[in-house]
């Protein structure tokens, strides 16, 4: 248990400033214990092994990143163009639709003289009886 505590203290000494008491305690034990000195050596070696590691991506990493950025930017431009074109087409369709509706309304008004429901449906001459016999005529 005591050993574990001392080992923790040793590890802590690599990563944090020890209090004066802790430092004194660690120095004392290190001067007396071969085991702890050996642990310290191992920990130093472990850190040395890790800090000396060199890592690199495969060659032409920079070009791969720049290609990806170009693709991303071109993709955005295409996306933007598509949205712009869609809006343009939609605008044309909407204007044509509104024009067609206006022409229809004008022609109804000219021919029927009003905008009543009957004028739109063209069934003002039907009475209820007529309508029933008209609907059932095929049967």
């Amino acid at each position, binding site marked *: 248990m005591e050993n574990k505590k001392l080992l923790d203290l040793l*590890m802590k000494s690599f990563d*944090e400033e020890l209090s004066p008491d802790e430092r004194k305690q660690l120095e004392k034990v290190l001067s007396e214990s071969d085991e702890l000195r050996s642990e310290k050596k191992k920990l130093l070696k*472990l850190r040395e092994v890790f800090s000396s590691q060199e*890592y*690199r*991506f495969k060659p032409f*990493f920079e070009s791969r990143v720049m290609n990806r*950025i170009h693709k991303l930017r071109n993709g955005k431009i295409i996306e933007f163009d598509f949205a712009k074109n869609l809006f343009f087409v939609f605008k044309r369709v909407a204007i044509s639709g509104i024009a067609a509706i206006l022409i229809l309304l004008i022609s109804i008004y000219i021919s029927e003289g009003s905008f009543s429901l009957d004028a739109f449906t063209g069934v003002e001459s039907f009475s209820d009886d007529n309508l029933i016999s008209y609907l059932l005529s095929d049967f």
Partner: protein
Amino acid sequence: MKDYSSLNDLELIGEARKGNERAFAALITRYEQQVAKTVLGMLGNTPEADDIGQETFVRFYQSLHNFRGDSGLGTYLTRIAINLSLNELKRRKRSLSLFFSANILEAKEFDQPDPENVEDSRDTKEIVQKALQSLEPKFRPVVVLRLLDQYSTKETAEILDLPTGTVLSRLARAQTKLKSILDKLIQ
């Protein structure tokens, strides 16, 4: 032709913001190795690691205008790289769990390098890499940032958004495990 390697990070970022691609490429060259250390340390030498490395710089490019320079560019990139790597580890775990039961998954995830191979292999890098990959995902970033990238404990805690005490305890546990795995190497 302008020598971009003589410009500091903020000057290069300024140029890159104006659309100067050569300035951004100079930043990639400057920080490639640091990002490689973080990503390869976290994920091992896999095809995904290269992809995550690229994505780190792409994300930085996309947020060029938001970079305020509160922390150094190296720290900023490391933070992106760590987060992307952690996401990749989660993705790997999810896709593995579709095929393996929980027990097999645990065994696979925390597979330790074979001591025989450790003894025979002359490639220290490979041994260290294997040892790193044998650590549980929550211990790995602490080791990568503190031991590979050489960040201070405080910086490591800030990057991982963890209390310093947690960083220290994870580091101690990870080192105990690494010491036992790499025993022959550190004798």
